């Protein structure tokens, strides 16, 4: 069947959507699904919120920190010099008075700028363990402001705002990569979500086709719809069923992460929470055909087992290939992200989703590689889909050889 006919008959078929809707309903109304998709993240969010509020209650309010300036660096501790964080700095004459205030509970900790600070950079810190890092980060910012006190105000604010880097790529066709750790984190998150979705739904897909074949329901279905409509409807329905908990989990985690980032920034941690929207966009374009490609490959596997042997399962094979074979290859490729191996794996439709997405978080990937990978994924999807329809149709003729089934 030509690809154009498939497109017309399947992708504009309301029956395909009925099948997708029924498949979706079939899964999302199960108790286990509701528990996993909705109850667990809500409970988790409640627990985390409860812990966060509890922590906040014990650490709420402005933390007062003392500064013992033996080096003579601190110039100004009035309000205009304080950074907009939850920390307020107060100067003390010596460490004895600072320690006394700390023991009296009027201070949450203090820093001592040693006399030889300008030569050694040595600062001693006395704070509670749980607030040591944010306190140190706030003190760094405060100290920088003190050192720049005599600098022009505009220049001081610019320097305190952070350095603005602009990278010039060697190759004009490359996408400039924002060198921030969150790019790799985002790429990793996309891969994890894709992997979870794939593993979550693969089992359902495998059994969906085989079980419907076994219980004869498919005979009634196929007297109403074409095999292609049935396959696409199943894949779509199960994909939606897989995406739903991911959206719920993602939303809950996203809100939580957003709150966490805001809290960290409030406490002065040098954390850049800006999202790499370009990477997100490319990642979604790469992963969008990848899921149905994996799903259709699973469907093909299900159809193949009905030819080869009813008891011979390819399921474990398809399920563990990504871990056993692809994972080592991926690690090797990412250790040299611009190597021929990495480029090659970025163009193979079944490895591109992982390898290429991770490369986008690490290095500058040429546009042509991204474009070629996406096109090859879609071509592979159409090819595998046609093959699985043909094999499944052949499988319904009875026990044939593999060649007869495909032919």
């Amino acid at each position, binding site marked *: 069947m030509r690809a154009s006919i498939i497109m017309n008959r399947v992708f504009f078929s309301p029956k395909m959507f009925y099948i997708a809707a*029924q498949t979706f309903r079939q899964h999302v109304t199960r108790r286990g699904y509701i528990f996993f998709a909705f109850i667990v993240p809500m409970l988790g969010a409640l627990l985390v919120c409860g812990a966060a509020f509890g922590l906040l209650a014990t650490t709420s309010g402005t933390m007062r920190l003392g500064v013992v300036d033996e080096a003579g660096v601190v110039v100004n501790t009035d309000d205009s010099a304080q950074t907009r964080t939850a920390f307020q700095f107060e100067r003390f004459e010596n460490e004895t008075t600072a320690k006394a205030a700390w023991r009296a509970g009027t201070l949450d900790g203090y820093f001592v700028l040693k006399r030889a600070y300008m030569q050694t950079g040595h600062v001693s810190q006395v704070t509670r363990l749980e607030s040591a890092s944010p306190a140190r980060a706030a003190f760094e910012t405060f100290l920088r402001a003190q050192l720049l006190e005599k600098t022009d105000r505009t220049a001081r604010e610019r320097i305190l705002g952070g350095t603005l880097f602009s990278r010039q790529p060697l190759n004009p066709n490359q996408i400039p990569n924002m060198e921030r750790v969150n790019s790799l984190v985002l790429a990793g998150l996309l891969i994890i979500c894709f992997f979870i979705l794939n593993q979550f739904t693969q089992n359902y897909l495998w059994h969906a086709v085989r079980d419907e074949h076994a219980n004869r*329901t498919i*005979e009634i279905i196929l007297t109403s719809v074409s095999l292609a409509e049935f396959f696409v409807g199943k894949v779509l329905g199960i994909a939606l069923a897989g995406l739903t908990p991911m959206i719920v989990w993602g939303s809950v985690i996203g809100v939580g992460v957003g709150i966490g980032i805001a809290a960290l920034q409030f406490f002065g941690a040098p954390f850049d929470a800006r999202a790499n929207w370009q990477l997100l966009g490319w990642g979604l374009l790469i992963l969008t055909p990848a899921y149905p490609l994996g799903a259709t490959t699973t469907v093909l596997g299900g159809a193949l087992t009905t030819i080869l042997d009813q008891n011979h399962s390819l399921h474990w094979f398809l399920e563990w290939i990504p871990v056993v074979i692809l994972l080592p290859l991926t690690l090797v490729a990412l250790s040299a992200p611009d190597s021929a191996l990495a480029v090659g794996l970025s163009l193979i439709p079944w490895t591109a989703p992982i390898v290429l997405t991770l490369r986008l978080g690490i290095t500058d990937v040429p546009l042509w590689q991204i474009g070629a990978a996406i096109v090859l994924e879609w071509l592979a999807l159409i090819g595998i889909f046609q093959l699985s329809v043909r094999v499944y149709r052949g499988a319904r003729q009875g026990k044939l050889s593999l060649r007869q089934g495909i032919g």
Partner: protein
Amino acid sequence: MASPLVSFQNVSKAFGSKTAVRDLSFTVERGEIFGLLGPNGAGKTTTLRMLLGLVTRDAGAIEIFGGALDEGKKDRIGYMPEERGLYNQMRMWDCLIYFARLKNLSAQQAQTRVKAWLQRLDLWEHRAKKFQELSRGLAQKAQLLAAVVHEPELLIVDEPFANLDPVNVQAGQALMREWRAQGRAVILSSHQLHLVERVCDRILLMDQGRARLYGSLAEIQRAFAPQAVLVRGRADFATLPHVIAAREKQEGWQLTLSNAVTPSEWLRQIAQREDVVLERFEIATAPLDEIFLQLVRSGVEIEK
């Protein structure tokens, strides 16, 4: 003359080395109940599956609604398979609505028709149950409902009377007659010959993939019992002249007459006898079971 609704021409199908259907030809007309009959393994289900496009033929031509089967024609066909093909974990109502929507009924139409049929088949009170909670008979009725809800022009039922009690068998037969009266066609496949011979107009009797009998049921039955009569009354029927065999039945006596006299001539003769009080006289037809056994023993293929 209108073209037949269904046409099989020299159709064959083999699964590996086993020939399931061999050079089969028949037609099904509008407004008739066509019986596709035969013992287990005769090739009936394979024939139906080829008709529905579920299995591809190896040779021959199959036409339905005047041409090859395509996706658009599927909405005009209703199919009830031999084995129950329902989602065990689904509620009856949801499942039937789903099947109805797949036949291109709107949501409103599907709900209206499913409700009407559930009430007609005494399934309304079970609509919220899952299929795994239903008896075989109820599930079978639901299966039939799924096949007729969209009012197809061609209804194909495979072993429709299995698992049904006599009351529901009668109800099913009445439904088929009603369907016929509306100008629709029914293809009825079964190995329960004694049940289907009450409703079928024409039949195709298969055995080992081949056609053994094909044609009008009434003519076939008469052809296999030309000298048989059914009588009821008061007389020693077995000893009457020209009676070569007599078998007592619930409705009377079935007598086999010699070839020396026609049934009508024999009736004229015994009607004048004083020792015979005749309450009923009828030309007997041979049951399909007996016809089939005769054919199988003789190994003869007879076609119209």
